[in-house]
């Protein structure tokens, strides 16, 4: 049996961590899935950097509006209580420290919380940064949502990132298919891991030292 989480389950795990009343920006791609698993009794306000606060779910087929899209340029809706504003005001929210949380994807994360998620070493195509650097430095907390290793098995969590950085010392917590890891001043502290991997195996898949004062079981419902 493999208890590694699938993407939906990582999204679910992150969603459990988001407090009632939080202002949250979900990065483009995988992190967007987090919105689907927010516990029903929690009211969360989602922010989108293109000028939305109170972003709601994908509209029903035929109800899409080209003027109402999210940062990934996909059609969304706006909840009651939501608001529209300019890019400048939107990034004032981000950069001014008004977002409680931002969830981002990552190519690499360092043990000191550096994040690399916008460019690789060999960019065959022109690199784009979008709002990643603003979100990384601006949000009060930055969660990373990622597979623990790359597709070819290379660690993504390492002593130092080799890819160009998005921000330095910005990541607070890493959620992978195998573990939940806090980035602390003392280093990477494993808070949870899936049952069928040993701490030794987890360390082998991680290119930075892991600390394990007290590790809980990482589990998610079938999704």
């Amino acid at each position, binding site marked *: 049996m493999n208890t590694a989480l699938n993407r939906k389950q990582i999204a679910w795990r992150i969603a459990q961590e988001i407090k*009632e*009343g939080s*202002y949250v920006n979900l990065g483009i791609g995988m992190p967007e899935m987090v919105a689907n698993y927010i516990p029903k009794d929690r*009211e969360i*306000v989602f*922010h989108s950097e293109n000028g939305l*606060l*109170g972003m709601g779910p994908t509209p029903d087929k035929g109800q899409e509006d080209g003027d109402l899209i999210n940062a990934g340029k996909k059609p969304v809706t*706006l909840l*009651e*209580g*939501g*608001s*529209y*504003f300019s890019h400048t*005001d939107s*990034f*004032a*929210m*981000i*950069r*001014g*420290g*008004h*977002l409680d949380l931002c969830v981002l994807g990552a190519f690499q994360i360092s043990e000191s919380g550096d994040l690399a998620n916008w460019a690789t070493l060999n960019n065959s195509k022109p690199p784009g940064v979008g709002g990643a650097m603003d979100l990384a430095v*601006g949000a009060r907390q930055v969660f990373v949502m990622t597979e623990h290793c790359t597709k070819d098995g290379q660690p993504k969590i390492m002593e130092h990132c080799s890819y160009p950085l998005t921000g330095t010392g910005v990541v607070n917590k890493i959620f992978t298919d195998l573990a939940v890891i806090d980035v602390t001043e003392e280093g990477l502290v494993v808070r949870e891991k899936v049952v069928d991997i040993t701490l030794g195996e987890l360390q082998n898949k991680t290119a930075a030292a892991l600390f394990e004062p007290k590790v809980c079981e990482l589990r998610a419902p079938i999704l």
Partner: protein
Amino acid sequence: MIDKRVDTIDAALSGIEDGSTILVSGFGNAGSPIRLLEALIDQGAANLTIVSNNAGEGEFGLAALMKAGRVTKVICSYPRSAGSIIFEELYDQGKIELEVVPQGTLSERMRAAGAGIGGFFTPTSAGTLLGANKETREIEGKLHVLETPLKGDVALVKADAGDRWGNLTYNKSARNFGPTMAMAAKLTIAEVKTIKELGEISPEHVVTPGIFVDRVIKLREER
């Protein structure tokens, strides 16, 4: 459920500590949160630094707070209004400190605090007494001074309508410093004339999105 509405002035002002920097909206009496200021006397916080365009008039609102001896410093653009008697008396007696800041710089410094800007260059006050002790730099042939962000511990803001998410609208020229101060403080308390149901304020017409507001209290107009 997110609900930023509070029922009592005590609840609205709770937690404001001695020594706080308080941003107070208003230009003259337009947009001045007079009731909140007067209730702050009962709340008891002392040793306050007040950031406001003017230094109060008559014996109400800000002037009453000053008269009660709670204010040790005023940062403003124009302390002498018609009837700023209390302030002038305290100033003459050496009981209150004054920092005069050009009006646009005052507003922009608070915006910088709200928008995560670490400092900015402006030609305003360059070559004058008010720019005398500031770092200067010539930019495109024009002397500029470096201004720093001005952050509040608390903002007391008077708005027109508010809802449970903290969205605000203002009335005419009473808007003035409200939207900027709401962004620039750790704790933003808004006094409103009307509480609206969520969604009653059009998302296109929200002036201060709720992310910038912590508490909303409906108060009767007093004057």
